[in-house]
């Protein structure tokens, strides 16, 4: 008898939580009660590069990280999906692994669909090549980008080899940035090696309008400008496509 009752109460528990309960959990977990319900399909997808860019070493789960094994398949899927016409890349990153960052940047640069990037809080270090890899780049007024030489984290051993290896790695970053943006190699290297801007460190912290002035980023703007530019590029891409068909 008691067992029966136990089973009965258990099955009761399995019932869907009431609407009121759902609302309470929503408030507890999200601090809000309702999010508009939309299931539309969209022709513009958005890729967010946040936190650290994770490389070959997995960062502990408490770190906010962008993993290239997540991002690269997403870029492949975007390239393949015919319903997706454009990609908006949102950056707020402190940088991270050089190889992983360059891999993401190269993937974005070789995407056949129009891409627009927008640097929000920060696009530091290896975030710079990712920002410039898109067809058009935006930076918000208050956002900053730190340009600095490649740093050693103690994973590469052997003094002369390490120096050469790092130098080559840096050369790849410089070449990528100068190829995909309007900044000259001289200016980029000047910013990279300048002293006195970052306390006791080499490099420069470039704020929004300065990044545009140096030619690193195309324009200062927010999400509205970025979306407008992306739609423009999509229209341009479509008319080009039609011409080829005819």
């Amino acid at each position, binding site marked *: 008898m008691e067992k029966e009752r136990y089973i009965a109460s258990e099955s009761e528990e399995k019932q869907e939580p009431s609407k009121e309960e759902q609302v309470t959990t929503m408030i507890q977990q*999200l601090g809000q009660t309702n*999010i508009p*319900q*939309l299931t539309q399909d*969209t022709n513009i997808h958005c890729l967010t590069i946040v936190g650290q860019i994770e490389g070959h070493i997995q960062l*502990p789960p408490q770190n906010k990280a962008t993993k290239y094994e*997540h991002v690269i398949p*997403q870029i492949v899927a*975007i390239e393949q999906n015919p319903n997706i016409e454009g990609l908006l890349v949102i950056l707020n990153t402190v940088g991270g692994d050089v190889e992983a960052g360059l891999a993401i940047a190269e993937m974005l640069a070789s995407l056949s669909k129009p891409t627009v990037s927008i640097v929000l809080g920060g696009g530091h270090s290896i975030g710079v090549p990712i920002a410039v890899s898109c067809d058009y780049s935006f930076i918000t007024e208050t956002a900053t980008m730190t340009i600095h030489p490649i740093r050693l984290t103690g994973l590469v051993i052997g003094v002369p080899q390490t120096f050469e290896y790092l130098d080559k790695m840096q050369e790849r970053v410089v070449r990528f940035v100068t190829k995909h943006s309007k900044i000259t190699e001289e200016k980029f290297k000047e910013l990279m090696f300048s002293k006195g801007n970052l306390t006791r460190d080499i490099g420069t912290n470039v704020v929004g309008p300065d990044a545009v002035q140096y030619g690193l980023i195309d324009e200062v703007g927010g999400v509205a400008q970025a979306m407008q530019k992306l739609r423009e590029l999509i229209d341009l891409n479509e008319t080009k496509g039609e011409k080829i068909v005819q």
Partner: protein
Amino acid sequence: MILYTIMPEHLIFQTDMDEYTKQKIVYYDGIPFIVQETETKEYEIVRNLSTNPFHFLEQKYAPGVRFPLSVVTS
């Protein structure tokens, strides 16, 4: 103790392996999510990895929402 070093923190203070297995990537309704298993044998969404911005407007894909282990597809 104060430790001055240029080494990243995670190289010096290695995280316990259990920490890594807590979170994993699963597909739910065809959308990739980073999830964490709860004591109630459910998955709790930690992060939505979708690139479709409309997936972020759906209440059931928001961080903190739980779904049963059985609905996961690989």
